């Protein structure tokens, strides 16, 4: 028998990057909030710089949830289905921000207006065949104050490139105008980064340091980054890498109006006869609870947001919560981060104590920052030369055909070259398509017996063309910086399980093609809000978390400001 708990104003499903941010504006407005989190609290003592545990095996978690609900994957309905052994997201208060790379990009203005900008500049025929991409219901300017708020609330370091229209060539000249500079200067560059930046300038490009949710000096009672080299899939032992668990959640808890319930595994959203959300059901161990709430905010990861909606069937919603329009799971895509280029340099790069957020960015070939008239694609890629090296992965690196992979000859090779290779991380515009979608897997189930999600998706011609174009640029850059060998990865095919998963509950004014409205509330259930990458209709060429958090703040603020109309009083 489920225990029915006292009702609350707002229940948030997931205390991660999105839910952990949304809680603060809600409690500040005087609302009572319950945050349900499948994981537990973890602290700096759990964050040992241990490559075997963190990178080779799995992140330390008291609770394994995401790893037991890994979606199945297939390229299209005619291809075979596989299921990866693990999931890159984690369960804990703060979510995956505990161990993520912490790159903190704003989307560029073009990303909000892909359809209209492309049509205006090149004609509508340039939109790729089969894409379901739409303009966002608002532009960059609408989100700017929320980007600004989150950058200062959580603490983002970086170099501004456009303050109020004033271009600063030290930063990204292609970014949308920001009201003010970052609260902290960017992460430092190593000699290798300086070399890459010089090479880029020599090519006529505009290199700049990327933004990061990592302190670079004392900020908000936490110290700056100490550069220990285990940031990639590692927690921060000095809390320089920030997340809701170090900022917004503790602040919200101080008001006394946020209650965080850990180990709470949400299994369904309840509805009344009118289709409004009445609360959620969750399990702790073997005990089941019902948490009634006036408003439900779904803030788990993209996959789990969609799965929970599809699992929550009722008379009103036979095909899943807020899915009578059949849009839940549609317009899915995951960021094309593959198609890497690797290079070998004839000198050590000094990368042992770097981090993925420390590096040189090139935005000249992203979005519509360059002329596409003579090209066969729209969008582009952000080139990113970072520092990231740990012993086992370094020893596992490729030999560029210069040595066998083992034996005495390899020993000589790795002794000289362990710190001399580099791999690019190039994020590319990825679009939604009619034939890429999420639904429930007909066979595979989680330990509680619920179906896991199924991803049916593959990159299309536009993504592959960008991948090849981006590889060409990266190769040019490496050569200019003195690389003596180059290796290129494949262009990509199936969209696997990703940390940059978008869509499935897309945001838009048209209820025929979108699940949530311009504020993030379901068209079919106005007291159900959705937070996370699942509401985003475009990816840009950069990491999504800051955008997710800006949107979460905006949704929460809208809820607080329109409480009576949203709860129907």
């Amino acid at each position: 028998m489920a225990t029915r708990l006292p009702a609350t104003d707002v229940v948030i499903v997931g205390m991660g990057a999105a839910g952990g941010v949304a809680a603060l504006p809600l409690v500040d407005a005087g609302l009572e909030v319950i945050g349900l989190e499948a994981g537990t609290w973890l602290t700096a003592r759990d964050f040992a710089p241990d490559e075997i545990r963190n990178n080779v095996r799995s992140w330390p978690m008291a609770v394994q949830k995401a790893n037991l609900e890994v979606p199945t994957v297939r390229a299209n309905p005619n291809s075979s289905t596989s299921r990866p052994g693990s999931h890159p997201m984690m369960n804990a208060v703060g979510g995956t921000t505990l161990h993520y790379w912490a790159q903190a990009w704003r989307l560029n203005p073009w990303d909000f207006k892909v359809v209209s900008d492309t049509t205006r500049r090149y004609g509508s025929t340039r939109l790729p065949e089969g894409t379901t991409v739409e303009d966002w219901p608002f532009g960059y300017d609408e989100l700017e104050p929320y980007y600004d708020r989150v950058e200062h609330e959580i603490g983002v370091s970086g170099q501004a490139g456009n303050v109020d229209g004033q271009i600063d060539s030290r930063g990204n000249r292609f970014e949308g105008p920001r009201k003010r500079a970052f609260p902290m200067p960017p992460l430092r560059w190593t000699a290798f980064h300086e070399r890459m930046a010089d090479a880029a300038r020599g090519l006529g490009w505009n290199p700049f340091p990327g933004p990061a949710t990592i302190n670079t000096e004392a900020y908000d009672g936490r110290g700056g980054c100490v550069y220990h080299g285990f940031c990639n899939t590692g927690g921060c032992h000095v809390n320089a890498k920030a997340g809701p668990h170090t900022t917004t959640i503790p602040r919200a808890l101080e008001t006394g109006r946020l209650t965080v319930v850990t180990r709470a595994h949400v299994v369904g959203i309840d509805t009344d006869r009118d289709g409004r959300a009445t609360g959620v059901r969750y399990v702790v161990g073997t005990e089941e609870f019902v948490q009634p709430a006036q408003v439900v905010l779904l803030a788990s990861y993209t996959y789990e947001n969609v799965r929970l909606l599809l699992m929550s069937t009722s008379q009103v919603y036979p095909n899943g919560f807020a899915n009578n329009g059949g849009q839940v799971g549609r317009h899915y895509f995951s960021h094309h981060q593959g198609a890497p280029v690797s290079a070998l340099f004839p000198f050590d790069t000094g990368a042992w104590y770097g981090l993925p957020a420390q590096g040189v960015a090139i935005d000249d070939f992203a979005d519509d920052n360059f002329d596409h008239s003579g090209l066969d694609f729209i969008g582009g890629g952000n080139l990113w030369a970072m520092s990231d090296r740990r012993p086992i992965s370094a020893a596992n690196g490729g030999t560029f055909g210069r040595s066998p992979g083992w034996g005495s000859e390899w020993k000589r090779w790795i002794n000289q070259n362990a710190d001399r290779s580099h791999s690019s991380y190039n994020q590319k515009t990825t679009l939604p398509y009619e034939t890429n979608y999420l639904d429930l897997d007909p066979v595979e189930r989680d330990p509680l017996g619920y179906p896991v999600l199924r991803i049916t998706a593959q990159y299309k011609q536009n993504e592959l063309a960008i991948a090849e174009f981006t590889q060409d640029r990266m190769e040019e850059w490496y050569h200019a910086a003195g690389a003596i060998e180059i290796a290129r990865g494949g262009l990509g095919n199936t969209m696997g399980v990703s940390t940059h998963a978008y869509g499935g509950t897309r945001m838009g004014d048209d209820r025929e093609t979108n699940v949530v409205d311009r504020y993030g509330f379901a068209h079919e259930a106005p007291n159900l809000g959705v937070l996370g990458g699942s509401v985003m209709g475009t990816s840009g060429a950069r990491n999504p978390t800051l955008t997710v958090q800006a949107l979460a703040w905006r949704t929460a603020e809208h809820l607080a400001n329109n409480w009576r109309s949203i709860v129907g009083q």
Partner: protein
Amino acid sequence: MADDQRPVISRRDLLKGVGAAGAAAILPPAISKASAQAPGVPAVPAPAARASLASVPRSRRLENLTADEADVIEAIMARLIPSDEMGPGAVEAGALNFLDRALGGFLAEEREEYRDNLAALDRYCRMSRGAPFVELSPVDQDSVLIDLEGGSATGSGAGFTGSSGAFFGMLKSHTWQGTFGDPYYGGNADFIGWDLIRYPGVRLGVSQADQERLEAGELQPNRRSAYDYEMFEKATALRSSQRGATHGD
């Protein structure tokens, strides 16, 4: 099972001087001597003290592999990362020790795969080279490993559970983990692996001056495990189903 009779004393416990009496009962004299310190000694020994501890010759203390299995694996490891004029290799680093321990913990699910494929390797060596792996010359051992890696041993009828290349890949990957991973897990003895790749060691922070020393090739290895730093607890990465696990590692 062996663990039932044996107090579980981790290397870290030894370094911390915790449970030193128990350690004395089960460890070779040289290790007992180095670690039988009174409680209250510094949690992180000076590098010199650690070096003497880490450089103690390792006696093989198997927990999961049979002696024959361990002999073959060690012989393979000796070819993958050999001890040669450049210095010690995977065997000296204790990669076998790492693997044996892990097969009772995080890699418990791979125990059977090792058993079946080592038996297949033995059949393959006798069929194709007329002798078991450990009796082959280094040149023949390398040629067998090349057969394994390239997958040409797969269809030999020797009975590899999948492709021979997959088995080779698994063994290579665990050899690398045991050679280049944190010494906490029982391998990378005396920091042999980190010295080979010129990794200057686990640090809690690297200042701009340290970074410049690194770039000038002047940052000296500090020879520390992550768990030599007092602030960290060893939270464990668990697998969804860790059948047969006896170790939390």
